[in-house]
């Protein structure tokens, strides 16, 4: 019996491929790797490129990944693909933005607080109006 690998290609938002294969090629950071069954355990990052999956008796399948991680166990290959374009400074910018938003929202005590206060005042005014209307109705007959 021919030896096979179990291959899973997943991204955070969906499962891309799951099945058995004879050989898998992936764009690892240090160069493309070809993985045959009983490969030694390996953990590496992926560059943007193609993951090729060879299944016996079928055409080779291609999957584009924009980066991610590759884990190899002797009979399991797992590709954890990134969906978003990732770079250190991009992440940094996103983090800064999140921080800024928090600071702004915390400083901006006015808006939310006043909203609650205004709501309370409005409820009071409505109640007053209702009483006035009732009184008027009574006196007006």
């Amino acid at each position, binding site marked *: 019996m021919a030896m096979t690998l179990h291959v899973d290609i997943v991204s955070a938002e969906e499962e891309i491929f799951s099945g058995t294969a004879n050989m898998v090629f992936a764009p690892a950071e240090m160069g493309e790797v070809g993985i045959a069954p009983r490969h030694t355990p390996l953990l590496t990052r992926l560059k943007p490129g193609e993951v090729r999956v060879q299944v016996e008796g079928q055409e080779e399948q291609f999957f584009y990944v924009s980066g*991610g991680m590759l884990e190899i166990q002797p009979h399991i290959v797992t590709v954890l693909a*990134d969906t978003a374009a990732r770079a250190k400074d991009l992440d940094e910018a996103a983090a800064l933005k999140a*921080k800024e938003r928090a600071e702004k929202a915390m400083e901006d005590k006015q808006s939310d607080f006043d909203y609650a206060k205004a709501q309370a005042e409005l409820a009071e005014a409505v109640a007053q109006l209702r009483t006035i209307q009732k009184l008027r109705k009574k006196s007006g007959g």
Partner: protein
Amino acid sequence: MAGAKEIRTQIKSIQNTQKITKAMEMVAASKMRKAQDRMRASRPYAEKMRTVVAHMGRAHPEYRHPFLIERDAKRVGLIIISSDRGLCGGLNINLFKKAVRSMTEWKGQNLEIDLAVIGGKAMGFFKRLGGNVVSENSQLGDSPGIETLIGSVKVMLDAYDEGKIDRLYLANNQFVNTMTQSPQVEQLLPVIGDETDEELKHHWDYIYEPDARSVMDQLLMRYVESLVYQGVVENIACEMAARMVAMKAASDNAGELIDGLQLVYNKARQAAITQELSEIVAGAAAV
């Protein structure tokens, strides 16, 4: 016919409200189905991630990543995921209650707390409560991509790296089924490895390319991100389910109110007719 007109207007206004709640119920139902699909679609990644991290926890690298090492806690981080909009029953409040309970517990142990909030409701609540909010993220919409969450998570991971916080928790709603959503607070960092070992017990290690440190850095970062993303997607499914149930209850209540008012209205009408008739009869008898 005293009050008949008022009752009629009131019935009309309740009917209008009922129309709105019914529409919201149906919108929430269809959105819930989509949110559940998304939740299911993102599950394989989280599962694979968990397996790989568990494998890595059992490998024996020379380098021990800080995310895997337990240290004495002085300050903890908490990521809270809530919805952006209300009208979804007690969903957010139940979660906040649970989070606040954990926070009081930590405060009892003299731990300080940093908060990262995701969702408008959490921001409003913890601002009023007076928590130390270090990052904020809201208006994610119904189908957020993972890239919208990177910032919030990175703030916390950086704080952990720099030793500002010593533990990281995640609070979100777990989707049990349409009727039940259970709030939970779970630990993200340091990573708790599960000890369900099979054949990987013997001494082995990966080949790391280019080196253990950078590979583990990236992997663990993605791991935490994927957990948070999963939390957000799940919370959206919860929100929609809770809104659907709340709006259904509101429509039912409106229906009951209308029935009651209709009864009062009919009685008033009947009384007016009877009175008029007896007046006419009395008038005719007098002639």
